[in-house]
């Protein structure tokens, strides 16, 4: 940055940068609100993303059911950041078109997947924090479980 540059452009640049910074924040808040949009554009539209959004996927007395489908490397269903109340019973159902293994970080839970067969993990969400759920082999991130 040259020291003799005019004051006005410099100040404008500062405002623009500040706007960029706070602009990111605004975008982020929007992203949270619609956390269940499909994360990959390459996913097939066969299972259209139900707008279950940040409301629990299907909360009931029996706990919360989170369903995710992986097709051709794309993830659809309850993706993004999924909030879960601490202590709640969570049932995670993953259906993939390839053989892999689901892994819930932090809780360190896993279940092997066979193509087309839903794999299911049920556990009590007792550890607060944000935990990624991923496919172990392909490292595809399915969702982030937000417990708290």
């Amino acid at each position, binding site marked *: 940055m040259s020291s003799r540059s005019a*004051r006005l452009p410099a*100040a404008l640049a500062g405002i623009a940068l500040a706007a960029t910074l706070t602009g990111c924040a605004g*975008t*982020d808040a929007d*992203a949270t609100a619609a*956390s269940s949009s499909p994360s990959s554009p390459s996913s097939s539209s066969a299972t259209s993303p139900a707008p279950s959004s940040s409301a629990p996927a299907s909360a009931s007395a029996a706990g919360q059911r989170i369903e995710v489908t992986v097709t051709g490397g794309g993830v659809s269903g309850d993706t*993004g950041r999924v909030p879960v109340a601490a202590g709640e019973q969570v049932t995670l159902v993953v259906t993939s078109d390839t053989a892999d293994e689901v892994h819930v*970080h932090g809780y360190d839970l896993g279940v092997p997947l066979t193509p087309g067969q839903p794999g299911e993990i049920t556990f009590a969400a007792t550890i607060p924090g944000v935990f990624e759920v*991923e496919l172990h082999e392909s490292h595809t991130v399915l969702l982030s479980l*937000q417990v708290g």
Partner: protein
Amino acid sequence: MTLLAHGVGSRTDLPIPLGLALYGAGAAILISFVVLLLFWRTPKLGGADSGRPLPDAVQRAADSRAVRTVLQALALAVAVLVTAAAFAGPQETARNLAPWALHVTFWVGLVPASLLLGPVWRVVNPLRLLHRALRPLVPAPVAAARLRSLGLWPAAGFLVVFLWLELVYPGRAEPTTVAVFLLGYAVVQVGLALRFGAEWFAAGDGFEVYSTLIARLSPWGRREDGRLVLRNPLANATATPAVPGLAAVVVVLLGSTAFDGLSRTVFWQTGPGAANDTFSGTVGLVACIALVAALYVLGARLSGRLAGQPEAVQPRRYAATVIPIALGYTVAHYFSLLALDGQTTWILASNPFGLAGVDLFGTYGNEVDLTAVSSDAIALVQVGAVVLGHVLGVTLAHERALLSARRARASDQLPLVVVMVLFTVGGLGLLFGF
């Protein structure tokens, strides 16, 4: 291998509640304005010669070549063990000591160690021992004079390399990556020290410079005559020499922490960083550092222009005032990592090579307790660290302005204060989640 942020780790923090973030930001701005405008009209902090001298015995022990050699030999032994475990231990990240020892216990642990004990890595740096051992075998250093003009720029460069490895490189958590990094870093650093002289480490070893920088907010200082003193941490920070590259180091630390926070937001993971590859990560890291640098240089220069000070030295002159802000960011982002995932290091240290039946400390069977610190406590530490860092940063900048010109108008500092407020709001915003 996990694909989580910051090297290794099994969890990230819950977003802090909006209310807490707003209270935090409001408190930070209010407190700093009150301090700035009402109570602080003359320089109040002691300079480089302030402080209460420590007892002679402490001074002798701290300056003793023998004590340093022993400590450095111990650190070297641990480093060799960790590197050997990285090569020969279990190759699964979750069961290998090295990634946890480097990314969590060493890198994050260096912060509380330096804050409480002073520039510890300068004292125990094992590379200094290697350099002393090899020095008689090679010709005398040839470029010692050139080093001084570089200031801390070499350290800023090496820090960027390590932070890129920690935050971007996809294989960052692999034991082999850690082993190659540790060996490569040692060879390059010792090689450069043989060329530039032993002063290299204080200017070019990223870890030593990081530790020394954080120690500027510790109560332990050294007077200009070499006497060790106990003094107000803020006076310690004010006495930081404004060498070239100081601003670069601070900006790199601040920008990389911002990127670490950004990279775990839904916005990043589904937007610019959706590809989750080296390219998007590198661009994100560089963009965050560049944004922080641009804002900081702009604020410091505009403040300097308003106050009629030479603009070119302003970023360097005020760099030490950003140390508390960078520290606040760091504590907010990594406190829980050290407290929770850091347990893994002590579990795995009980059996570094994964041999059957080995359990040196009886901890190998332990499980990491991810509930050891409640999420409420984590949120309070996060907001508290960012707010405190902001208040101290603004206070230091104000003191620095008064030192530069006794009759400085508080309004001259407005551009820099605005930038610091942006850093605080941005830091809280990233912790607020998304």
